[in-house]
Each structure stands twice: as structure tokens, then as C-alpha cells.
């Protein structure tokens, strides 16, 4: 069954069907074959609803809305001007700032999709103007946003911790090392890219100019304050911080800067709704497809066929990495964790592997998978928000994926990348 399902999905995808079609057809074939007909299709509808149910998803439309208001108005521009007055003269400075902003925002908001929108939508036009190619910009945004999985709080790590009975606090600490390493490598690549493509730099701003930008950015500085201060300060959950940003953005743009009319606000809400729907129908269809894979016990069958119990430490870690990478190419990361972690649990235990190391490797693979074609929420979000074709969004990704995979492989051979900080903090 799995073969027929995957083949038909790939064919439909390549022929140019709307992306929801391969997912729906894949799930439908699964239901038809498992239940000998269409008798249980109601469960497919149920799972499409289940996919869009998680309360944390609400952060996505809220951040889309806030980012759109900020970008149409002046808030985003003023914040970027401030950053540019400090890094504009440095080769690759804007790209590095974008990567860092994505990492930080993603870390705090906990939502990679929200990051693509909130950081990507104001910064992409500026990077294009500065002379970066769009394929590079899109890939940088999508991949940097995925670092968010590794830096706490990370929903993927919480779920892994619960399923595998591992300390979530230790996982959180262990994710920071690889997360920052990836950011560093992305920054180096951005610098090399800027040098090789000779991306022009701006003239170095004077301290007077910097002060002016700072003064202009005073009001918009409330956004990082709401997000970082609000969430780490225990005032907001990420979802609520998103809604607070919407309110603050409305106050700034409608009342203080007076750049937006109520009609503009209404139109922005409408386009937010459209983007949300386009992404969420894929999230829903993806959930239905995930259910089929899980119900048919496809991963269990594949893994028992390759005889994982006879492999050594390195072999098992590679199989785990590949399984999660491939799984997340097609299926929702959370479901992949829930289904696969128990499958691997016995062999992880019998080899005495550190569950924190395994969890960090898995979280990294989940992050890579979300940015990897064919199916990835962050790719979908970028397509919907930036209105660029699928191929263009993924064209620039290979160097980034290469970096991510190198870190993943390094972590297998040098576990200290993940465990160094953990051992330090928990005195192991």
C-alpha cells in the first residue's frame, strides 16, 4: 500500500496539482485500501479537523496579521533602519542579521511558520533591495526559522521528552549548542555568499544617523519587548504574545503613525485569512495522511525489515537520523516523533545511548525535514506569504540543507556538540 500511496502522491505533485490534492489522494487511497471502500472516510474528515485544532496554531495567523500591519505601516521599516545603521556597511551584514533575527524570534515564539512570516516579510524586501537574490533570501529565511526547533522552548523537545521519558530541561539546554552552531555556519555562508556575489554594502552610518534611527525606532521597539519580555517574563504564552503584537501594531499604525485606515486594517485581516487558509488546509490534509501512515504501521514495518537490532551505536544513530529526516519530508513532525520514538526506544535503551543526545539529533532532523521538499509547513508558508513559486522557494535550499546535515552527522561523531552545555549545567 505504502508504495502505491507515495508514487501517486509524487506524480500528482509533479504534474502541478494544488498541493492539497496529493495529500488528500494519498490519504484517500490509504483509507480505501485499509477499509475496503469508502466506508470510513468520515475519519479522514475528522483528522483534517484534528490537524488544525492545536491551540498553538493560533499563533500563526496572529503573527501573520501583526507582521502584515507592521510591514504595510512604518514599524517594520523603522526597526530595520535601526539594524541597518549598525550593520549596513558590513559585507553580508543584513543576511546575518536576518538569520539571527529568525533564530531569536523562532526561539521565543516557538513557531517556525510564524517566524517565516514575522521576520521574513519585513526583511525580504530590504534584502532584495540590497542586492541579494530572491532564492537565497527565501532559503535563508525558511532555514533560519527552523533553528527555532532546537532553541527552547521547543514543542518538539517537549513531546520527545514526554514520549521517551527524558528530562525536558536537559533537552532544552542540549539544543542550544547545535542551534547556535547552525546559526554560526549560516552566518559564515551568508558572508561568503555576499562576498562572492559582490552584494553592495551601504555607507557606514555616523553616530548621529544611528541616534536618529534609534529615536525613530523607539515605539516599534515595543515589539521585541512584548515578544521576548512578555514570553520569558511569564506574561504571555507565545499565542497571546502574537495577539498582543496585533493590538500594539494596530495602535501604532492606526493611532500613532496614522499610516493605516480602518479599511486597510480590514483588507489586511482578509489577506491574513487567505494565507492562513491556504496553509492550514495543507496542515489538515497532512494530518489525515499522517494518520493513514500511523494506522497502517508503515514505519514499524519498514524498520523491522532493515534489522536495526544488529547495528552498533553509530549505525543506529544514522538509521534514526535518516528515519526522522525522511519521515518529516512527508509527514507532520509531531506525529513523526509520536510514532517513531517508541519504535526506536528498545534499541536506544539496549545500546545505552544517551536519550538527551538522541532527542537533540531527532529534533534537528525534524527541523531539517520541515524545510525540506516536497512537504514542509515552512515551505508552504513561504510560498503563501511571499507569493513565489514553489521551485523558487526551494531552489536556494541545498547549501543550507548541506550545512544542517553536516551538523547532524557531526553530532553523531561528536556528541559533545549537544552534551557539552548540558553536562556543564547539570554537572554530569
Amino acid at each position: 500500500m505504502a508504495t502505491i500511496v507515495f508514487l501517486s502522491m509524487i506524480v500528482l505533485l509533479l504534474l502541478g496539482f494544488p498541493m492539497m490534492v496529493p495529500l488528500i489522494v494519498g490519504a484517500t487511497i490509504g483509507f480505501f485500501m485499509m477499509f475496503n471502500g469508502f466506508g470510513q472516510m468520515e475519519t479522514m474528515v475528522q483528522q483534517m479537523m484534528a490537524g488544525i485544532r492545536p491551540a498553538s496554531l493560533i499563533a500563526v495567523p496572529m503573527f501573520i496579521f501583526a507582521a502584515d500591519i507592521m510591514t504595510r505601516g512604518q514599524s517594520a521599516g523603522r526597526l530595520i533602519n535601526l539594524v541597518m545603521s549598525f550593520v549596513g556597511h558590513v559585507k553580508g551584514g543584513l543576511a546575518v542579521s536576518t538569520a539571527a533575527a529568525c533564530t531569536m524570534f523562532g526561539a521565543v515564539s516557538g513557531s517556525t511558520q510564524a517566524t517565516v512570516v514575522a521576520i521574513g516579510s519585513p526583511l525580504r524586501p530590504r534584502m532584495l533591495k540590497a542586492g541579494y537574490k530572491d532564492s537565497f533570501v527565501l532559503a535563508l529565511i525558511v532555514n533560519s526559522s527552523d533553528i527555532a526547533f532546537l532553541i527552547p522552548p521547543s514543542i518538539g523537545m517537549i513531546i520527545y521528552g514526554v514520549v521517551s521519558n527524558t528530562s525536558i530541561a536537559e533537552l532544552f539546554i542540549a539544543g542550544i549548542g547545535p542551534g547556535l552552531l547552525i546559526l554560526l555556519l549560516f552566518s559564515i555562508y551568508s558572508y561568503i555568499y555576499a562576498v562572492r556575489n559582490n552584494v553592495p554594502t551601504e555607507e557606514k552610518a555616523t553616530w548621529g544617523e544611528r541616534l536618529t534611527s534609534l529615536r525613530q525606532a523607539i515605539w516599534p521597539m515595543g515589539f521585541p519587548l512584548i515578544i521576548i519580555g512578555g514570553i520569558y517574563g511569564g506574561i504571555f504564552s507565545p499565542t497571546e504574545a502574537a495577539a498582543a503584537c496585533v493590538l500594539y501594531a494596530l495602535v501604532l499604525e492606526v493611532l500613532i503613525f496614522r499610516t493605516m485606515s480602518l479599511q486597510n486594517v480590514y483588507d489586511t485581516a482578509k489577506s491574513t485569512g487567505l494565507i492562513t487558509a491556504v496553509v492550514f488546509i495543507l496542515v489538515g490534509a497532512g494530518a489525515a495522511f499522517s494518520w493513514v501512515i500511523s494506522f497502517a504501521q508503515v514505519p514499524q514495518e519498514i524498520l523491522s525489515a532493515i534489522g536495526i537490532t544488529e547495528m552498533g551505536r553509530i549505525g543506529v544513530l544514522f538509521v534514526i537520523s535518516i528515519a526522522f529526516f525522511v519521515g518529516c519530508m512527508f509527514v507532520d513532525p509531531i506525529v513523526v516523533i509520536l510514532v517513531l520514538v517508541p519504535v526506536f526506544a528498545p534499541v536506544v535503551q539496549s545500546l545505552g545511548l544517551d536519550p538527551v543526545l538522541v532527542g537533540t539529533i531527532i529534533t534537528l532532523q525534524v527541523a531539517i525535514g520541515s524545510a525540506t521538499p516536497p512537504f514542509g509547513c515552512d515551505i508552504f508558508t513561504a510560498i503563501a506569504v511571499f507569493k513565489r513559486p514553489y521551485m523558487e522557494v526551494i531552489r536556494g535550499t541545498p547549501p543550507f540543507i548541506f550545512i544542517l546535515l553536516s551538523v547532524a552527522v557531526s553530532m553523531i561523531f561528536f556528541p559533545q556538540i549537544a552534551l557539552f552545555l548540558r553536562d556543564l549545567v547539570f554537572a554530569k
Partner: protein
Amino acid sequence: DTWRYAFEEALTEVQGVYAQKFKEEVEANSDHEIQLFPFGTLGESADIMEQAQAGILQFVNQSPGFTGALIPEAQVFFVPYLLPTDQEHLARFYKQSKAINEDFQDLYANQGLELLKMYPEGEVAMTTKEPVKTCEDLNEVKFRVMTNPLLVESYKAFGATPTPLPWGEVYGGLQTNIIQGQENPTFFLYSTKIYEVTDHITYTGHNNFTTAIMANKNFYDGLSEEDQKVIQDAAAVAYDHIVTYQKGLAEQELAKIKEAKPEMTVTVLSEEERQCFVDAAAEVEAKFIEMTGDSGKAILEQMKADLAATAE
């Protein structure tokens, strides 16, 4: 045949241990095979319940707290101080109670489900950031509760600010102080690592977590008597197993928590200290009757009678 069985917890938690024993028994005594689907692999609690009602799953384990959306009377398990904390008394009660084995059996049957067993998962403990000695200590505390109206009422009556939050946001919420407390059975505090982000465990004796295993009714009724017996026997063996398994489980898990976090305080409230919680329970009971009417009241009375009958 291959039968499918989904539950709300991980394989190593109480529901998972029950499920594994049930599977072992069925497979040892028949030619049937059972596939287990732990927490989240086929959806949330409400999803697997619907799938069992649709006959896709043959067995489902759902706690009555979640079944309240379908069978309002099931919320009776959230009336504080109704169930005792004495595990042996509880074990007898679930086995012999008319309310459970007849009344609830019928209520579940109306929803297309054959109730096989209800069983305990352990006393519910509060974990908080600040120590709790009286109801006053809960004042201003944002206390996470499951999305269940009666549970919201309970914590309101206890003096806290009940904050319904999906489970996925609880760990992060405690870490960032959006909420300052939550409740769960002891083993769950350890397995879900909630102890890492709270500092005090308090036993007020207000509830004992109950869960239920059931089969799709059409499926069950269509089985041969022999197969039905295999299932009933397996459910009974798994019941005895889970009761034995849970003896000392709370102490064990508590010891693990203390080892991982020595500064954790554990408090069992005295009769005197828990008085204000007991007083508040009357309010919640009245609310339950208001919500469920005569049939809820009848079940409540029956449960009280059964509890008295099974007390030593």
C-alpha cells in the same frame, strides 16, 4: 483477526501497562493479535473515541473526564472527595460497584460502546510553585486544569484562578510562570517531567484519577461467546495486574522525583488543613447535579451507596 487498541498515555505509563497486559492475555488465549496505539499516534482523546465508535478501533481507553463531553454523567468522577484515597477500598469499589458495572455500562452502550472496566490511576496531586497548606495559598494562583467545566468549578471553589490550557502548553507555561500550578497523578508528574518546573507537591486527597477501557459495541456483540470471554478475562486479569502494579507506584515515582530534584517538597495535608477543600466540594457537587439533572443525581447517590458498601 488483528484488533486495534488506542489509549491516552505512553506505553510505559499506567494505561500503557494495562494495555500491554490485556494484549498479552488476549494473544495467549486466542488466535487474535492486538496492535497498540499510544497517545497521539491516532489523534487526541476525542479522536480515538470517535474512531472506536466508528468501529475503526476495536478497543479504546478514555478517562471519564474526557467522556464528559459525550456522557455528561461521567463528570461525576471530578466531584472532589467522592472517591477515597485508600487504594484497596478503591480496588474493591471499581470491581463491585453497581453504578459502574450497570449504570455506566448502559450509558456507554447508548454511545455504541461496551464498557469493559473502569480502573484507578492513582491519587491526584497538586504541583505548584509556592507551598500549599490551605485554600488561601491558592489565592491568585493560576492553576491549569483540563478543559472540563466541573474541574473549573472545583478550582474556583478552592480559591484558585482556574486556567484551562491544552496539555502541550503546560510545561512551557509553568516554566515561564504563565501558570503556577497543575494537578495529575504522581506517576504522571514524573513521566511528563512536570516536577522540573514546579517546586511543591501537595496531596489534598480531593480526587483519585479514574480511567476506562471499552470496546466498540457492534464489534463486541458480533463476537462468539468464546471470544467475548477471552476479552472479559483479559480485562479482568489486566485489572488485577494494574492494581498490583500501582501498589507503591506513587511512592516509587515520588522517590525518583526526589532523587532528580532533592529540593522538591512533598506535603500531605492533615484532616484539619484539608477542611476548606472539603467544604468547597459541596459547592461542586451541587454544580454537578445542576449540570446533569436527575440522572446525574441518581448516579451520584448510587456511587455513594456503592462506596459505603465496599468500605471495610
